[in-house]
C-alpha cells in the first residue's frame, strides 16, 4: 500500500466516523432549543480552519506543520463541513435574500473545492502521460522558441517553398502565435491538432523532396506546440478553479460574520 493510499484510507475512515457521529448527534440533540446556534458555531469553526489553510500557504516560514498535512485536513474537513452546513440548514432550503446569498456562496465555494479536488486527482496523471515535465511559467518562452523555429523553417532565408510559406501564413502562423485549443485539451480531444497535421500531410503532395523534409520538421513542431498547449490548458485548469474558490471564500466569510451578528442581534437570545 502506497503512502497515498494509506492517507486516503485514514482520511476516508476519519470522514466516515465524523459523519456518522455528526448524524447521530443530530438525531439525538436536534430538539435542543439553541441547536442551530451550536451547529452554526461548529460550522463556523470548520470554515475558519478551512480558510486559514490559504493563510498557512502564505506563511511558509512558520512552523505550522507540513502543507501536505494541511491539504489533507482541508479536503476531509471540507467534506465534513458540507455535512455540517446541511445539518445547520436542517436539510432544508434557506429563505430570505441574505440567507440565500449566503447559502449560494457556500455551495459555490464547496463546489469549486470539489472540482479542484477532482482536477488535482485527474489532471496530473494526464499530464504525466503527455511529454515530460513542463513548468507552467516557462511555457510562453518554450512556445516562443517553437514559433521562432517554425518561422525560420517556413519563412527564413533558407526557405524557398512558396507552398510552405503560404500554408504557414494562412494556417500555422495563427496556431503558433499563442495558446490554442484550450477546451479541446481539457476534454482530451486531439481533433483540432489532428486536423492541422492532416492538412500538413496533404501539403506533401505539392512539395519537393527537400520541402517534404521541412514539412516533417514542421509537423514535429506542431506536435511540440500542441503538447505545450496541452500542458498549458491542464495546468491552467489546475490554477483557474482557485479563482472561484479563494475569492468567494473571503466573500463567504464576510457574509458569515454578518450572519452571526444578525442572528445574535435580532434573536436577542431567543430562537
Amino acid at each position, binding site marked *: 500500500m502506497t503512502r497515498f493510499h494509506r492517507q486516503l484510507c485514514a482520511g476516508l475512515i476519519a470522514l466516515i466516523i465524523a459523519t456518522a457521529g455528526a448524524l447521530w448527534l443530530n438525531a439525538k440533540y436536534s*430538539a*435542543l*432549543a*439553541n441547536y442551530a*446556534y*451550536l451547529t452554526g*458555531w461548529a460550522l463556523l469553526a470548520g470554515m475558519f480552519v478551512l480558510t486559514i489553510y490559504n493563510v498557512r500557504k502564505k506563511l511558509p*516560514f512558520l*512552523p505550522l506543520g507540513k502543507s501536505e498535512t494541511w491539504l489533507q485536513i482541508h479536503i476531509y474537513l471540507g467534506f465534513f463541513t458540507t455535512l455540517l452546513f446541511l445539518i445547520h440548514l436542517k436539510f432544508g432550503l*434557506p*429563505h*430570505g*435574500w*441574505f*440567507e440565500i446569498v449566503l447559502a449560494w456562496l457556500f455551495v459555490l465555494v464547496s463546489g469549486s473545492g470539489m472540482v479542484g479536488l477532482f482536477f488535482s486527482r485527474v489532471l496530473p496523471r494526464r499530464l504525466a502521460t503527455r511529454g515530460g515535465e513542463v*513548468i*507552467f*511559467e*516557462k511555457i*510562453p*518562452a*518554450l*512556445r*516562443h*522558441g517553437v514559433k521562432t523555429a517554425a518561422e525560420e523553417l517556413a519563412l527564413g532565408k533558407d526557405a524557398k517553398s512558396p507552398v510552405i510559406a503560404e500554408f504557414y501564413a494562412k494556417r500555422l502562423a495563427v496556431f503558433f502565435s499563442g495558446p490554442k485549443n484550450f477546451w479541446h485539451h481539457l476534454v482530451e480531444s486531439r481533433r483540432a491538432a489532428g486536423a492541422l497535421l492532416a492538412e500538413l500531410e496533404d501539403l506533401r503532395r505539392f512539395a519537393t523532396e527537400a520541402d517534404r523534409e521541412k514539412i516533417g520538421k514542421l509537423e514535429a513542431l506542431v506536435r511540440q506546440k500542441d503538447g505545450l498547449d496541452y500542458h498549458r490548458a491542464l495546468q491552467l485548469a489546475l*490554477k483557474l478553479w*482557485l*479563482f472561484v474558490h*479563494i*475569492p*468567494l471564500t*473571503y*466573500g463567504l466569510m*464576510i*457574509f458569515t460574520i*454578518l450572519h*452571526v*451578528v*444578525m*442572528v*445574535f*442581534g*435580532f*434573536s*436577542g*437570545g*431567543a*430562537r
Partner: protein
Amino acid sequence: MSERLPAPDFDAQNYARPNQNWICGHACDGNACRPGPDAKGRCCATAECKPVLELKPGETKGRWKCTRTGGACEAGPLPDGSCCRPIAKCSPVPTLRWWRGRLTLAVIAASCAVLLVVLGNPPWRNNFISPGEISQPHSGEAFTALAATNQLNQGCGACHVAGNTGPRGMVHAALHADPGILDLKKLAMAHAATPTAIDESCLKCHAGRNMHQPSAPPVSCSFCHMEHQGRMMAATTDANCNFCHGDATKMAVAAGAGNVSEPPIHHFAEDHPQFRFITEKLRDPDTLKFNHQLHLTGATIPNLPGGQKLDCAFCHQPDAAGAFMKPVAFEKNCRVCHSLQFDPETPQLMLPHGNADFVSAYLRSLPKQYATLAAKENPADVNGFVTAKLAGLRTQFGSGEDLERRIFFSTATFGPEAQVGELSGATRALFPGCAYCHEVKAAAGGSPQITKPVQTEHWLAQAKFNHAKHLNINCAQCHDAVHSKDTADILLPAQESCATCHSPRGGVADTCAECHTYHKPPLLAR
C-alpha cells in the same frame, strides 16, 4: 528550518518565480532578465552585471572588473565603471497569482460595498435580511396600523430592537445578546421556553400573557409561535405542550396549586387521560324524555313524509360552520310526528308550544278558538258548532280543569296508535300530554310548570371539534345512540374511540393542537 541550496544544474539565469506577482516582460520571448521586476511590478533591469573596482597594492586608480553571472564578457566594463551590456527595459507582466489576489480583493470590496449599501438603506435592509416571510397577522396594512397605534416602529423594528438601527446598532445588539455570542455553555443549556427580549415586543400588542392555567410557568411566545415561516404561522407542536404536560414534576406542581391532577401526557393514543365525562360518570342534565334507541330502531316509528326512515341527520343538522350541530327544535324536528292536536275530532286546532302559560290561556279560551274555526268552516251555525265541540270534550275529559290537567300531566297515549300526527294522512291526532316528553311540575299555585329542556352544545369544553371534518364516518361509529334509551346518556365517544384514527397507527393527526387551544378565550378573541 533547513535551508535548501540550489542543485548544481540550477539555471539561475532563467529562474522562474511563480510565487511572485510580476514576471519580466521578456519572459514570453525566453529572454527574462535575471533580477526580474520588483514587488510593485517595476522593471529593475539595468545591465548584465555590476562591475567592481579592483585595487592592487600601490595602485591609486584601480581596474573595473566584470561580475556577470556565467562568466565575464569580452568587452568588459566601460571606463566609468558601468557595464557595457545594458538590458532593455520591459513592461513586467502580472502573474496569475497577482490576478487572483486582485480578484479576491475585488470580491471582498464588492461584498463589503453591497452589504453597506443594502444595510444602510432601511427598506432594502428589511427585505434583504428577513430570513423568511412574515405571517399574515404580523404583516400587511392591518399590522402596520396596529403597530402605529401601539407606537411601534415599522418593519423589523416592530419586533426586533436591532431592527430600529443600522449596522452599528445590529453589532451593538449582537454584542449585548443574552446568551452572549461566545457563551456556548449558556446557549447549549438555555431552554427555548425561557422568555427573552423579543417577548417584550410581543407584549406591546398582546398585553397580559394569558396562560391557560394560572400556575403555568411563563413561556416565551417564540417557544410555540415561530415567525418567518411563511404566511401561516406554524401550528404549535406537541413538544411545546409536553414542556409542561410531559413533565411529571411540573404537573405535580400544578396539581399542588389547586389544578386538577393529571398524569404526564406525551401522545394522545398512548397516555392521554380518559375524557372527564366518562371518568366522572357525568349525566346529561336535560329533563326532556327522549329514547334514541326507540326512534332509530323502534318498529312503531313510522317513515317520514318523504318515505325515508327516521335517521340521525333528520334531527341533527350541522350549523353554518359545519363544526357543531344545531339544537334540535320541536317545530322543525318533532312536530312532524308529535302533533299538538288535543281534540281528536278537530285536527285544525293545535296547542301552542314553548310556554305553559300560553297553553293554559289557550285551553281557557277554547270557546273562542272553536268560534273562530266555525267562522271559517261553518259560518251559518257558529254557536251550534262551538256547543257541540265543547260537549264532546266534556264527554271525553270531564271539566275544563280535568282537560287542562290531562294535557299537562298525562303521559299516556290515547286514540288509535297506528295514526300519529299527520303521518298516516288520516289526521287523527295522538297527543299524549306535555309530560310525555317534558318534566311537568305542579307549582305552588296549582298551575303546571314545565322544566325548560337544556341542550348542551359542547361537552368537551377544553377541546375543539369539527363535524365537517368527520363526514366520512358513520354517526354510529362515534355516537352509540342505538343503545341509548335515556336522555341522561352522554352519547360521545371515549378517548380510545378517537385514538382509533387519531394516532400514528390510524394515520390521522394526533397532535395536541388538533383538539386543544392553549390561550384563554379572551386572548384568542383579541
